[in-house]
């Protein structure tokens, strides 16, 4: 709850520091507008049309069920990968042999394109929720796994000896030594995995399901409706930006206040 208070108190200053980020996003929108003006609305509708379409989708209530379905699948896959990836990664990190053995496997997992997993998942799970959830899980699992593995492997032996010399009881060993260290590796990995989940779920839905943002994109594509396509893309990207910069980044800052400041500290999102 201390965290919640700190988050609310720090929010205005944080948002203020975000002007630079907002400016660069607006530049991107300007470039979009320029391309739209050059190539015409069939290739790329201008941002205002896209935003208006999105607004209409939201206002009519059509957008929410699709977004909810997508979020449900993304979060389910993400939660699975966080649970399994963190647990297995930590376990592997404790043992030298296990971490050496798991490294090539993780490289293979990371190198396999998500679309390949999607094809397999479609064969295994058909048109059910299982397909996107599994694809998301497989795509974000290695990210979490590697974070957890490194967190467990890099635990400072000197600090462990210190803790033993001061006879820290097991509970303090866990709460004051292992947990903060491991979380400092896990948390960034979770954030990265969430971004992966959100992207992969849309791709999986595009090919395998009847509802969700991906499916809506497939429909608008078959109608050559670029305005709706851009509206959905904007919605997906906007949601990710909002979650990442309004929720996760401030939490990360608060949790990792003890870290040495980065060169970019204070530069905003």
């Amino acid at each position, binding site marked *: 709850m201390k965290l919640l208070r700190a988050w609310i108190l720090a929010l205005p200053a944080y948002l203020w520091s975000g002007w630079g980020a907002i400016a660069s996003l607006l530049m991107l929108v300007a470039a979009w507008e320029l391309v739209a003006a050059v190539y015409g609305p069939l290739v790329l509708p201008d941002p205002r049309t896209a935003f208006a379409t999105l607004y209409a989708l939201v206002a009519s209530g059509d957008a929410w069920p699709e977004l909810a379905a997508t979020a449900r699948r993304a979060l389910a896959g993400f939660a699975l990968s966080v649970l399994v990836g963190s647990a297995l990664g930590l376990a592997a990190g404790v043992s030298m042999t296990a971490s050496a053995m798991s490294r090539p496997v993780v490289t293979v997992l990371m190198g396999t394109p998500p679309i390949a997993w999607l094809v397999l998942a479609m064969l295994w799970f058909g048109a059910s929720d299982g397909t996107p959830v599994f694809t998301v899980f497989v795509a974000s699992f290695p990210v979490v796994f590697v974070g957890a593995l490194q967190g467990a492997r890099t635990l400072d032996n000197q600090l462990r000896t210190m803790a033993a010399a001061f006879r820290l009881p097991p509970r303090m060993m866990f709460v*004051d030594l292992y947990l903060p260290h491991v979380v400092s590796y896990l948390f960034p990995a979770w954030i990265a995995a969430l971004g992966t989940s959100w992207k992969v779920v849309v791709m999986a839905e595009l090919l395998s399901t009847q509802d969700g943002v991906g499916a809506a994109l497939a429909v608008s594509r078959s109608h050559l409706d670029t305005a709706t396509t851009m509206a959905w893309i904007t919605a997906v990207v906007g949601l990710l930006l909002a979650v990442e910069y309004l929720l996760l980044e401030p939490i990360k800052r608060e949790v990792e206040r003890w870290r040495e400041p980065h060169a970019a500290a204070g530069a905003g999102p």
Partner: protein
Amino acid sequence: MSAPRLRVRGVRHAFARHEVLDSVDLELGAGRIVALVGPSGCGKTTLLHLCAGLLHVDEGTIENGFATQAFMFQQPRLLPWKTALDNVALGLAAVGVARNERERRARELALRLGLAPVDLGRFPHQLSGGMQSRVSLARALVLDPELLMLDEPFSALDVGLREELYGLLLAHLAARRMGVLMITHDLMEAVRLSDEILVMAPRPGRIVARFGLDLEPRRRDEAWVHRNTARLLEEPAVRSSFGLPGLTPAPTLGGDDDTGSLARLPPLGPVVALARTASRC
């Protein structure tokens, strides 16, 4: 309460098949400061970790009669995610002292050791090396241990800071009957602080000589420390342990006065006793 002691008898230790320590004996009583000196890699740290119970004793016995102990390492080894105050209070938290009480005691001692009130709320990376060392010292002293173990804790600090911390440490010890076992490769530091100096030789680590210093540490001035360090350096056991060449008849020190007075001093003064008492009991 009978005076507690630390007794080490015939301790050997090996890492894999590499012998680190060979039949080490030492004894430390309450209120005494014993310094282990020797070159890097002679097994000093291993011996200290054995005494602290951080390593398992394979051969020989270590009887530690001190009820409580604290350790100060070569590096500050602070928890980077805890503030200075919480780091100082770490050992107190480990023995279950309530938060208010441990923060009060930690704050009081930290301020006495020269930390500023604003430093207490800072994280280790925001503190200078000297401040981190103070936190590390405070973390050990706040426990008020009967046995304090120091593993070259001041070796990375500059002369002024080191001298200040010696003073703070000695002032803190004066009011207490704390046994201190310290290791150092700095002979001057050993002469400055300890009542007894044990010289270790490497491969395998063993104690080759024992010296006593009778003047109370707080009354030693710089000249005294220099004089006795020089004398210690003339000891054959010390020279061979550190791999120094045997003494030539003409020492190479710059000032004639210095070298002259050094040579002329009697080996054992009545107060300034740098007495070689025994080697390997």
